[in-house]
């Protein structure tokens, strides 16, 4: 009995250290166990709550495993055709310039079929945020090669490993957009360890705030895993990511505005 009363004493608002964010709906996430998408969603949801942006946020979801993202976060959403999210977001932000507008896109969506939309939105300096999940593969369609698949990496359409002479080189979109005058804040992060989750959250918070400066496109890449597409257990996939993806896609900021001048 004493123990039960003890628990009741502990469960008090002032003792709360961690809670479910109200921005996440009750819908069960449709991701495979260990997939990075879920963590990225969670951070985004927390930030929308913490920054008080529920009524200002308009998200554009992609075609990819996160196609159902609009079911998971309790904000307004538009679902774009494959690769077209930056074009869709361009119009939203131009018509509603005081809103928090963002896209959330996979690497196939953003860096293959949507390359033109991505580059041109960033080059025009559209004032929205792009969140780019790079798992090096097409998750949703069953593990085909993505533009970000690293050399030698196996996928269902590079069954003998990516042969760059035949299939081309991986595309580092984040590096590319960082060189464009239209981008304002460009960074590459990951969510595979608690420390990295914290860093990514910090970066995303900045990106969300910068989004309101209306001084150019904010671009946050999150290097992620795809245990199913990589045909690994979640733990193996994290190790593989650290050993293979991160050396190829090093983490860190690529372009930061000057805090004083805001430029």
């Amino acid at each position: 009995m004493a123990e039960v009363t003890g628990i009741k004493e502990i469960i008090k608002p002032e003792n709360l250290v961690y809670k479910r964010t109200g921005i996440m709906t009750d819908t069960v996430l449709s991701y495979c166990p260990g997939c990075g998408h879920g963590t990225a969603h969670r951070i985004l949801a927390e930030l929308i709550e913490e920054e008080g942006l529920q009524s200002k946020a308009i998200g554009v979801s992609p075609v990819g495993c996160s196609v159902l993202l609009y079911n998971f976060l309790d904000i307004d959403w538009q679902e774009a055709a494959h690769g077209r999210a930056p074009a869709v977001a361009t119009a939203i932000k131009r018509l509603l310039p005081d809103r928090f507008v963002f896209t959330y896109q996979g690497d196939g969506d953003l860096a293959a079929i949507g390359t033109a939309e991505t580059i041109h939105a960033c080059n025009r300096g559209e004032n929205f945020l792009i969140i780019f999940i790079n798992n090096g593969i097409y998750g949703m369609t069953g593990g085909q090669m993505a533009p970000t698949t690293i050399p030698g990496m196996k996928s269902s359409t590079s069954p003998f490993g990516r042969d760059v002479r035949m299939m081309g080189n991986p595309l580092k979109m984040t590096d590319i957009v960082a060189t464009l005058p239209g981008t304002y804040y460009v960074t590459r992060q990951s969510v595979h360890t608690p420390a990295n989750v914290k860093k990514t959250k910090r970066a995303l918070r900045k990106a969300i705030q910068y989004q309101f400066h209306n001084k150019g496109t904010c671009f946050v890449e999150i290097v992620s895993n795809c245990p199913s597409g990589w045909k690994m257990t979640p733990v193996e996939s994290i190790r593989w990511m650290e050993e293979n993806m991160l050396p190829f896609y090093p983490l860190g900021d690529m372009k930061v505005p000057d805090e004083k001048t805001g430029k």
Partner: protein
Amino acid sequence: MERELRLMKGNEAVAEAAIRAGADGYFGYPITPQSEILEYLMEAKPYETTGMVVLQAESELAAINMVYGGAACGKKVMTTSSSPGISLKQEGITYIAGAELPCLIVNVVRGGPGLGTIQPAQSDYFQAVKGGGHGDYHLIVLAPASVQEMADFVELGFDLAFRYRNPVMILSDGAIGQMMEKVYLNPHRERSKDVPEWATTGKPPTRSRNIITSLDLDPEAQERFNLKLVAKYNEIREKEVRYEEFQCDDADYLLVAYGTSARVCQKSVQLARMEGIRVGLLRPITLFPFPSERISVLADRVKGILSVEMSAGQMVEDVLLAVNGKVTVKHYGRMGGMIPTPEEVVENLRSKIIGG
């Protein structure tokens, strides 16, 4: 010649048949339910054996324009996709039709509109047979109803494409793409070394330059070109109609269905006949050209026709035109990735045609 027996998915049969038909190039982009085609080709590595080029493009838009480029060199090239990807290809397809280029396009249809579902449907009939892109043009449209036909129509499709300098579409669906059946594969054909006289391969002194274009700014010349296309389509209508009949000889009622629906309807015919209802099935194999004349002849003999499709009612419009009011024509369809069951078809035949 010995044909090799294999057990394969419809999608795999397309890929293997393409290699064996001596295709020169394949350009694709992953999309369910047809990604196995690109996967199979990447695993089979025909570029090491026959020299066939296989490339994963960055989008369907790019893939169809690669097809344009390859076809304009006189090569046997193809692409495959499923509904949303085929919509994206429409711009390229009308340019290909306008430049009179031969190529093969496979649509493993899934339910729409929009992103829709990844389950099988026949809702792209209008898009396939009535145009799809802008301008006055037609594709030759073949509708396989088995894995065997998935393989056979690759070779047939290429032959028709080159005979008429016209894009050919295989209009399949997720069920036929994903299912496995026995398939007898033709022996390997050498990749052709013939160069069509219109192909852009570099101008030798012996001929004038070749230009592949779909542009003509002079309206009179453009109309002459349109009339040439019309004449070509009429020739195709005359010579290339293909269909299969199933117990139509003594039929009081007729089912018209293609592809997966036709397979379902075969069983419906058996079920209905067990109940003493004399039903036959006409299965269009070419959707353009459509077997209108045959349907018109059968319409003189039957009391009613049910068009069965996995759509809201698209082919039924062509059946109605063919029948021209002679007997009742009704539509029965399932949508959104649902497939009609043989029993449902019989029920609808009873309620919409026999009772109605």
